[in-house]
C-alpha cells in the first residue's frame, strides 16, 4: 500500500500553469487555509462533515474532499493523514461506496484496541476537522461491464471495500449474480446489515449471508461457523463459476485462498495485517522497495543502510551515524528498531534514517 501523499495528476488550468513558478505551495496553502480550511494549491484535503453509528464498535465518517481529490473506484482504499497532538498519523481505510452524487467520501472506522487513529476518529475528531488524503489505491474493483457470477467474502473490517462493490452493482440494478458472505464474531459487530438485507430483498440476483463465529445463527440469512468447504458449498452455489474477491484479516484470507484459489473462476484478495505481537532480532525479513518495485531479503539485526548496500543498492547517505538526515526515507508499513536506543517504532508511516534503524518486521520503504 502506498502511503505517500501526492498531488493529483490532473493537468492544471492555463492560469495555474502560468503562475506556477511564482507560487510556493506551502505559502499559498497557509493563506488559503485562512479563507477556507481545505483550500490548497495542490494537496488533496478533506473535511469531516458527518458521523453516523455503523455498529456496536464502528462509526461511518463522511468526508468532503477539496478539488484536488482525483476520485476513486468502488473497492478502493485511501490513506487518511490525521493530526493527533500535532503529529500526522496515516492509516489506510476503504471507501465504503462508489463515487457519490454529493462527492462525499464515506469511511467506516472500527475501534481497534490501542489504535490511536481509529480511537481518535471515533471519539475525538469533530465535525469540520481536516484530514489529508492520499490517492485512491487498490485492485479489487469491478470491470466496466461486469458479467457472470461474483462471490464476495468479507471478514470483520473486510466488509468495507466489498460493500462498496455491492452498492455499485445495486446502483446498476444488479447486472450479475452476486453473493456476499460476511463473517463477524457477534451480530452487534456487523455493519451495513440492514441495508444489505434490504438490497437482497430488492434484488433477486443478490444473495446475502451473515456468518457468525461466536454466536448462534437466528435469522434465515444467518449461519454459524468459520470459513470452510461446507459453508461455501451451502451458501455460494457453484464455486467453479464464481469470480471471487476476499477481504479480511491475514488468516481469513489465507484460508479463503486455500479453499478457492484453484477451484474458482478467479480469485483476488486483500488482507489487513495485524500489528506485530512479538519481535525477534534474528532471521530475515522482506523489504519491499515501493519506487523500484523490488523485494529484498534483509537480516533483522543490521542497519537498513548496510542491508541495502549488501544488495548492491546505493541509497543516498552521509554521516552513517544518524545526524545528517541524508538517508531519511519514508516508510509505509512495518516496524523498525532504532539501533542506538534499541527502541521499537511501530507507526506504519513515518520518516526514518536508514543508517540507524534496522528492520523488525517486513517493511515497505519509499525507495
Amino acid at each position, binding site marked *: 500500500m502506498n502511503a505517500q501523499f501526492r498531488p493529483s495528476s490532473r493537468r492544471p488550468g492555463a492560469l495555474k500553469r502560468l503562475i506556477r513558478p511564482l507560487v510556493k505551495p506551502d505559502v499559498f496553502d*497557509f493563506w488559503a487555509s485562512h479563507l477556507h480550511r481545505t483550500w490548497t494549491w495542490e494537496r488533496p484535503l478533506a473535511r469531516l462533515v458527518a458521523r453516523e453509528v455503523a455498529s456496536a464498535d464502528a462509526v461511518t465518517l463522511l468526508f468532503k474532499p477539496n478539488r484536488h481529490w482525483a476520485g476513486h473506484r468502488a473497492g478502493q482504499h485511501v490513506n487518511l493523514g490525521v493530526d493527533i497532538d*500535532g*503529529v500526522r498519523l496515516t492509516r489506510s481505510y476503504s471507501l465504503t461506496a462508489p463515487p457519490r452524487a454529493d462527492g462525499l467520501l464515506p469511511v467506516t472506522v472500527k475501534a481497534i484496541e490501542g489504535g490511536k487513529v481509529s480511537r481518535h476518529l471515533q471519539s475525538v475528531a469533530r465535525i469540520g476537522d481536516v484530514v489529508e488524503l492520499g490517492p485512491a489505491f487498490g485492485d479489487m474493483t469491478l470491470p466496466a461491464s461486469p458479467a457472470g457470477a461474483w462471490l464476495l467474502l468479507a471478514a470483520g473490517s473486510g466488509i468495507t471495500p466489498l460493500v462498496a462493490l455491492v452498492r455499485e452493482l445495486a446502483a446498476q440494478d444488479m447486472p450479475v449474480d452476486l453473493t456476499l458472505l460476511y463473517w463477524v464474531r457477534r451480530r452487534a459487530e456487523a455493519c451495513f446489515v440492514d441495508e444489505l438485507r434490504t438490497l437482497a430483498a430488492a434484488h433477486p440476483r443478490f444473495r446475502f449471508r451473515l456468518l457468525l463465529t461466536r454466536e448462534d445463527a437466528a435469522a434465515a440469512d444467518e449461519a454459524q461457523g468459520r470459513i470452510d468447504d461446507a459453508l461455501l458449498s451451502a451458501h455460494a452455489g457453484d464455486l467453479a463459476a464464481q469470480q471471487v474477491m476476499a477481504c479480511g484479516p491475514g488468516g481469513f484470507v489465507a484460508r479463503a485462498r486455500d479453499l478457492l484459489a484453484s477451484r474458482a473462476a478467479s480469485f483476488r484478495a486483500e488482507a489487513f495485517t495485524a500489528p506485530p505481537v512479538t519481535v525477534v532480532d534474528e532471521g530475515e525479513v522482506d523489504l519491499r522497495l515501493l519506487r523500484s518495485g523490488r523485494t529484498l531479503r534483509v537480516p533483522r539485526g543490521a542497519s537498513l543502510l548496510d542491508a541495502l548496500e549488501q544488495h548492491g543498492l546505493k541509497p543516498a547517505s552521509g554521516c552513517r*551515524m544518524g545526524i545528517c*538526515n541524508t538517508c531519511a526515507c519514508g516508510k509505509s508499513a512495518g516496524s523498525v528498531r532504532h539501533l542506538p536506543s534499541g527502541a521499537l517504532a511501530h507507526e506504519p508511516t513515518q520518516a526514518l534514517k536508514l543508517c540507524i534503524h534496522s528492520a523488525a518486521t517486513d517493511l515497505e520503504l519509499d525507495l
Partner: protein
Amino acid sequence: MASLSSMKNRKLTAEELDRFGAELDALRARTVATLGARDARYIRNVVKAVRYANLAGRALLFAAAIAGGLWLADSAVGWLFWVLWALGALSLGLGKILDNMELGHNVIHGQYDWLGDPQLNGRTYDWDIVATAENWRHTHNFRHHTYTNVRGLDDDIGYGLLRIFPEQKWRPFYLLQPAIAVVFALYFQWGVAIQNLKLGRWWHGKMTTRQLRHKSAPVVRKMGRQLAKDYVIYPALAGPFFLPVMLGNLVANGLRNVWTYVIIFCGHFTANAETFPKECVKNESRGHWYLRQLRGSSNLRGGFLMNVLSGNLSHQIEHHFFPDVPANRYAEMAREVRAICARYGQHYNTGTLLTQFGQVCWRIVRHAFPSRPPRTASSLVQAEAAA
C-alpha cells in the same frame, strides 16, 4: 589562543570519553521521548510568524511606495514614507531571518520529520534564500555537521575565502580579508549558494566547464527565481513606485545576510574554538565525536529573542551534539549539557554576542597576517598508557 582552551580542558581517558558520550546519548533519548504537541505547536507558530512578518513587510513597503508618490506631490508626507519604508524593510528582514534560521535551517535538518507533515519535511523543504536546500543538505547537514572544524573536510572553515585559524596556510591574498569579510557578510546568501559548486576546483582545472554548468544549473535556476521575486515581480506590482519596494527588498535581504553571517561565524570561529586534523576522525568513537563538537562550537548568551532569531544557534553546542533534535528544546537541554561538561572538566564556550563576535573579528584581522599555530599539539584524548 588555542592553547588557552586546551588548558581549560581536562584530558579524558578513553573510558571517561565513553561515559561522556553515554551521558549525552541518554540526554538525547530523554528529550526525544517527550517530543509532542508542544513542539508541534512551536514550529507551526514559527511558520505563522514568518508568514505574517513577510506579509507585513511586503504590505508596508507597498504603502511606503504609495506614500513616496504622495511625497512627490506634497513634501509634508516625506516622514511617512521613511517610517513605512523602514518598518517594511525591517519586518521583511525579520521574516527572512526567521525563515532562514529558526524555520528553514532547523526543518532542513529533519528536526521535525517526526511530525509527518509533508510541508515541514527535511528532505523536501526549501527556503527563501538563493542557496538551494539540496546543496545545503550536503555541505551543511553532512559535511559540516559530521566533520565539524576538521581541516580539509569541513568547508565552513573560512568558506574557502577567509583564513580564520593559524593552521590554514597563509597566502598574500589573505591580507585583503578584513575587507573581503565585510563584502562576504553583505552577500552571505550568495556565498552559501555557490559553496557546493567548488569553483576553486574549476578554476584549477580539476572540473570541466561542462561539469560546472551541469552542477550549477539548479543553483542558477533558484537564483533566478529569488532575484525575479524580490527585484522584478514585487517591485513591478508597485508600478511606477517600484524603486522603494526594490530597495526595501534589497535591505531586507542584506539584513538577513549580515545577521546570519554574524550568528554562524560566532558558532565556530570564536577565540576558544578549535580545528582538528583529518586523522582525528578515523575510527572516531561517539564520545570523541561529541568532544570534538564541543571544542569546535561556541554559544551565545541571550534570552528567548536571541534564541528565536538565531534559529537557536545561540545553542550551537547543543545543536552540534543533537542536530536532529527540535531546536526549541536546546535551551532546556543546555542546563544539563553544561552540568555534564563541568563534570568532565570541559570548557563550555559561551558569551554575549558582542564578546563572541569581537573574538571572531579579531581572528579575521589577526590571521590576515602570517601566524603560526601554538606548538602544543592538542590531542583531545589522553594518550593510552603503554602496556
